[in-house]
């Protein structure tokens, strides 16, 4: 399992637009992908779950990839977070 902590810099937080793009990117990964905030962990392939975390600017999330291709998935998604959020 791979883990990556990231603090959101986008002033609007994880709002619908990037959440949608992120979920799409996560769905394309073969392995399990989750996001955790303050002990609440959700499936990153489900947009309602991701949005329901209500992540705001300055808050830290933990991205986890687990299973086949977890390295490549982590690479892609980590980059996505840094570039878009």
């Amino acid at each position, binding site marked *: 399992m791979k883990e990556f902590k990231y603090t959101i810099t986008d002033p*609007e*937080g994880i*709002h*619908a*637009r990037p*959440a*949608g793009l992120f*979920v*799409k990117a996560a769905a394309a990964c073969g392995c399990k992908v989750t996001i955790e905030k303050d002990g609440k962990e959700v*499936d990153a*392939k*489900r*947009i*309602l*779950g991701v*949005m*329901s975390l*209500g992540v*705001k600017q300055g808050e830290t999330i933990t991205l986890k990839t687990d299973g086949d291709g977890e390295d490549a998935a982590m690479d892609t998604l980590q980059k996505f977070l840094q570039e878009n959020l």
Partner: protein
Amino acid sequence: MELQGKSVSQGIAIGRLVVYQKKDNVVKRERVEDTANEIKRFAAAREKAIEQLKGLYEKALKEVGEEGAMLFESHQLMVEDLDFIEGAENIINQEQVNAEYAVARTGDTLAEIFANMEGNEYMQARAADIKDVSNRIVSVLQGNDDSGLNASEPMILLADDLAPSETVQLDKSLVLSFVTRGGSSNSHTAILARTMNIPSLITVDFPEDVDGKMGIVDGFEGKLLVDPDEALIESYKKRQEKEAEKQRMLQELKGKETVTIDGKSIHLYANIGGVKDVADVLENDAEGVGLFRSEFLYLETDDFPTEEQQFKAYQTVAAGLAGKKVIIRTLDIGADKQVDYLNLGNEENPALGYRAIRICLDQVDIFKTQLRAILRASFYGTISIMFPMIISIDEVKKIKKILAEVKEELDEAGVPYKDVEIGIMVETPAAVLLSEELAKEVDFFSIGTNDLTQYTLAIDRQNAKLESINDPHHPAVLKAIQMTIENAHKGGAWCGICGELGADTTLTETFLRMGIDELSVSPSKILAVRDAVRKLDLSK
């Protein structure tokens, strides 16, 4: 009738009011035996919904661009969301009920989760998206998927609230404005209105019977005027035209440099009188604040404003301008601006009286409090300080000494501040005549043309009888300005104008030829002046 609401998009709209009637999907709970068939119907409805959403995406892409269209992509993801699908399927299977009911209830439950996200207004507004998505699927399941509104003439659209899918299906060329009873500034209707650049109001509690009447939406004041008379319509039409002109200039000139055809550029700053003006400064694309009148801090209170109150105001403006220059003018009270707690008393001749820097150099405590507040705020942006009503070198030397004392106190207390440029207002003939010497003492001049005109021409600017001869284009005034600019440059200072004359576009060319470095005008004049500068060619 005048109805008050909250504006979420500025502008003026005049037209027929149309109240949108939402078609509610009535969903009945029905027991079913063949749950597998309901699951199949649900899957087919999702597929159809996705198809519709793809169509809406394409339509929105053309009409409002990618930003607005993305919404329908996130709706597609919601339709495909496993929480949503599993939720509805579980209800169908466990309760042996119809798909319509299962979808509606799942939609409500999920929407509730978002609606309850305290402190996250944006996510709360997303509850409407989820409802919209579940309504769409229910509509497909029920076999009715036509939209609710047919219009043939431009209209002001009134509704309880509008779902994104409803707004995108509208013929946008016919919508002059959106007015809703509910909504929030983050709702899609509000975002759409801003994208379309049309006015929009929320929280307007309108009665149903306004349907079909004439109306005006004032997106500046957040008002809906029903059945306005001709005179009111006329005055709003004029305002509308002015706005359109401003918008045209904004589109053309926002983000552009203030530079002449032959490449001479000047700084174009804004004059402001309080913290609330910052939005105007940014909206009109000023390059900084050339005159921040600090008087409001003194005029709005019953006692001296504390250092903390002042610091907060200066800091807010400096931070709001995000590094752009902010020139704060120290207390300029007296003459026509009086405050009780200063006990200035009545003067025979207040324009020539105990005012501005004269008070500050006499009551040094007041002055020091202000300077300390300004220096502390300087840490949060790019601040310059400017002193009004200067008539002598000696005054400037005294000011600099006091400023040095304040800095020393701050150093001792370990309070951070940045280096600030200091400048003076040139608004007395004395300052003009001494401008060469004064320029060596300061970093910049800002010419206050209102007072300079008054003192140069010996015309009381408050005296209505003298109005006809009170000519700010008087050759003596223009000569004084020219002399000031030339001497500023000789002494190594830059020179600007912050009086009303700075915004007089018939003089823009004259000022540029004189070598002016900066013009500071009210925010609403910024673009007009930039326009004038950009049309000039000084090589001709």
